[in-house]
């Protein structure tokens, strides 16, 4: 089975000031199979949203390669690019700001159809919009409503319908439920999973919330300051988190059970901007197990279990077994 999406050494630098470069995405490799979901997790500023926009071609990459269905989309013709664009879509975080306030639900959902001249006549287009509304669970009576007349959950359903309109293969979900209440969040997550089962969709699910991706992802990638620090099948990651950052992230999630945090597992300090970063592990400054090997040269991803990759010096010494820290 070939990968539907493959990136190698993908980089995006933003120029800051006169000679500063913000390394938003710094050498990320992705391989994503059709019908699966990759969860991309990290705190604000880790480059996860930038990564999503890079693979969709909404932002030009600084360097690296992106193959979509075997096509090198950074060096292909316009026709192929347009075809890729049609098959890749995005669902945005905030359904309020990502929907034009002056357009009705019908206009919003039909926009991708109109833009891509998907139907010759209005009646067919209307039928497709109705079908989409039915699919995402929007009642027909909302067809002439405006975004501000609806609640967050329904607005996000419009966002999902827009993404599905052109029957895409691959959808980037950029924090699609972060702006929603828990009970509504569950509705949208279920909807996304149903859509995936029905249409064999591939998702890249970007979120800051590890508990959300657990349900939807087959594989999870943890990002820190533009780099992937750990990649693993979903279950394995939760069962056996390897990177100190992943461990810290997991233990920082407040579970709805009584009992306080384990303070010894809490991270010190805060995330900084990766502007002209020095080589070495970017997490070193906050890491409680930071050693001399962690600074000075970059730490590559190593496979410690089949499919479980970690970029940490604790695992580079003895074929996957943690180094004794004492």
């Amino acid at each position, binding site marked *: 089975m070939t990968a539907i999406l493959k990136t190698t050494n993908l980089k995006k630098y933003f120029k800051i000031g006169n000679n500063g470069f913000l390394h938003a995405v710094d050498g990320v490799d992705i391989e994503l199979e059709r019908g699966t979901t990759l969860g991309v997790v990290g705190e604000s500023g880790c480059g996860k949203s930038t990564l999503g926009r890079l693979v969709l071609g909404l932002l030009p990459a600084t360097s690296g390669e992106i193959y979509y269905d075997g096509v090198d989309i950074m060096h292909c013709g316009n026709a192929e690019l347009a075809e890729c664009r049609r098959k890749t879509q995005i669902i945005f975080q905030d359904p309020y700001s990502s929907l*034009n306030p002056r357009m009705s639900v*019908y206009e919003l959902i039909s926009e991708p159809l*109109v*833009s891509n001249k998907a139907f010759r006549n209005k009646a067919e287009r*209307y039928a497709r919009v*109705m079908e989409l509304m039915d699919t995402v669970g929007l009642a027909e009576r909302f067809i002439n409503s405006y975004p501000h007349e609806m609640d967050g959950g329904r607005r996000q359903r419009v966002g999902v319908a827009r993404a599905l309109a052109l029957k895409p293969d691959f959808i980037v979900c950029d924090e699609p439920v972060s702006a929603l209440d828990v009970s509504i969040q569950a509705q949208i997550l279920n909807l996304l999973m149903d859509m995936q089962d029905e249409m064999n969709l591939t998702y890249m699910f970007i979120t800051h919330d590890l508990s959300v991706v657990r349900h939807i992802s087959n594989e999870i990638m943890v990002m820190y300051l533009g780099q992937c620090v750990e990649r693993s099948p979903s279950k394995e990651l939760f069962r056996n988190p390897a990177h100190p950052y992943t461990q810290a992230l997991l233990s920082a999630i407040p579970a709805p059970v009584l009992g306080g945090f384990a303070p010894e597992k809490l991270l010190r300090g805060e995330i900084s901007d990766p502007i002209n970063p020095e080589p070495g592990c970017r997490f070193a400054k906050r890491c409680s197990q930071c050693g001399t090997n962690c600074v000075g040269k970059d730490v590559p991803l190593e496979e410690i279990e089949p499919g479980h990759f970690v970029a940490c010096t604790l695992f580079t010494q003895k074929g996957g077994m943690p180094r004794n820290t004492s």
Partner: protein
Amino acid sequence: MTDIIASNTELRKKLKKKSQVAEIWRRFRKNKTAMVGLFIFVFIMLVVIFADAIVPYSVSISQKISARFISPGQDGHLFGTDNFGRDIMARIVHGSRNSLLVGLGAVVCGIVIGGLLGSVAGFYGGTVDSVIVRTLDTVMCIPLMLLVLSIVAALGASLVNVLIAMMIANVPMYARIVRAAVLSVVGQDYIEAAKACGTSNFMIILRHVIPNAIGPIIVQATMAVGTMIINAAGISFLGMGIQPPTPEWGAMLNEAKSYMINYPYTVIFPGLAIGLTALSLNLMGDGLRDALDPKLKD
């Protein structure tokens, strides 16, 4: 669900969305001061349209030395007569056409040219933006009235030339207004969403940028018409605009200023005409702003 194949008329009926214009009008109507402005403006527009029916143009320019300085209300001269015995009301009625023409014309042409520059700068950003903005900023350093006056001096004093001068001189301001409005829209997520679903730049401008940016532009334009009328009056007042005997409010003030000591009414009425017109436009603009942006109201 897929078997809904409807005829076009049926579709149109089904997709009859609530008009947002009606919603704006509903909010505008509740604003008393704005309605007063609208009322005055409609009245002035009626005068402009039916000027010839109210009083023939010839009355406004026919000189009669024997009828100089007749006080308001006497001999059928509602606002009195001026130094040449011309009926002031007739001159105000016909002057309205020239004043409004200059005001509206300058704004409309200015918005078209400035809007083009401003939207190009705002939408594309980068070098294009900074070149346009720098140049416009430089032009804005020259005091507006002086720029207008020197252009009028270069072109010669006439109605059309005043209009052209005001239009040119105001392009930077309109470009800035439009650019700000466009920029506030271009940064929005729904523009990125539209790009993501394959909408062309042209369609994005047409369906997303313009509908969302037009509101503040209309508000500013409405108020700018009032300012333009005042400025045009100022130019005529200095004797460099529309030349007598053509009736125009500012020119009337210029002619009357030597007589204001003994005949104050000769300056009062033309000034009131300018002020009321500008006031009506300002009130309307203010009401429109509130009606377009309900967020400010709470």
